[in-house]
């Protein structure tokens, strides 16, 4: 152990400001990067889920329209015959 007391440790032989500034800024940047990289995972999964929902809705709408169109055509054919 290089330091005799906690205040001596904080003081860092007079260089406390520079040492703790370096360690603090580095820790802050790395923690932000780590957390945001981890959090992006769920965000991307939710985005793909939303995209999938949208596609499903579009497909359903398309099928519904096709059904309506064909049934309208059937009615029209029955009316003419």
């Amino acid at each position, binding site marked *: 152990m290089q330091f005799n007391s906690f205040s001596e440790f904080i003081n860092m032989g007079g*260089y406390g400001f520079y040492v703790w500034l370096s360690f603090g*800024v580095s820790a802050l940047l*790395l923690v932000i990067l780590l957390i945001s990289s981890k959090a*992006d995972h*769920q965000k991307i*999964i939710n985005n793909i889920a939303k995209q999938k929902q949208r596609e499903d809705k579009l497909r359903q709408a398309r099928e519904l329209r096709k059904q309506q169109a064909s049934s309208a055509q059937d009615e029209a054919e029955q009316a003419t015959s």
Partner: protein
Amino acid sequence: MWKWLHPYANPEVSYHFTGRLLPWFSALAAILLSIGLVWALLFAPADYQQGDSFRIFYIHVPAASLSMGIYFGMAIAALCSLVWQLKLADASAAAMAPVGAVFTAIALLTGSAWGKPMWGTWWIWDARLTSELILLFLYLGVIALHSAFEDKNLAGKAAGILTLVGSINLPIIKYSVEWWNTLHQGSTVSKLGKPSMSLDMLWPFLFCFLGFAMLVAVIVCYRFRNEILARNSIRPWVRELVSARATHK
């Protein structure tokens, strides 16, 4: 000879493989960094000239050498992507760029905070400092190009060319302290032959360096997996994974 590598070009295999590696990298990073940082801050002796300000070294040097190491990795990935059109190489290059940028920023900021008490200035337009600043701008350019195009293949190509052209900066950073007369001191750790450093300072450095390297591996794995998911969003295996994991319907 290289056949064993082929399955890893499959995004699904790589996604699960990096997922299995992550807990090991995380545990190693946590262990090595806690030992290394406590050793560096509390037990390593103060430098006979620089006193306790020397403890900044334990972040500054690993961050600086990793900032170049990550760039080197990114350049290899860019080369693979441009020559063999490996899509996963693009994804890994895109995953590495932000991590490299953060480590370059840390190297510059801690260097600045070390330079103020030792050199009397926060910044000087010296060869080492300026070339490292250019490295930061290269990373930012690569990140910008990756997000500038809707088409990820086109984005990867543009970013890859910038990465390869920018790799000329790596030897310039490395040898800047020898080629030019600079304020920045020469290398003490990676000198060929014997490092000119006492062992009770070198050991904590090795722990810190490996710890930070493992942290890089952890963050790059997270980002690589994110890139794979985002780039393969229409694949059935991603769709299955998404319907199992999505938090809101």
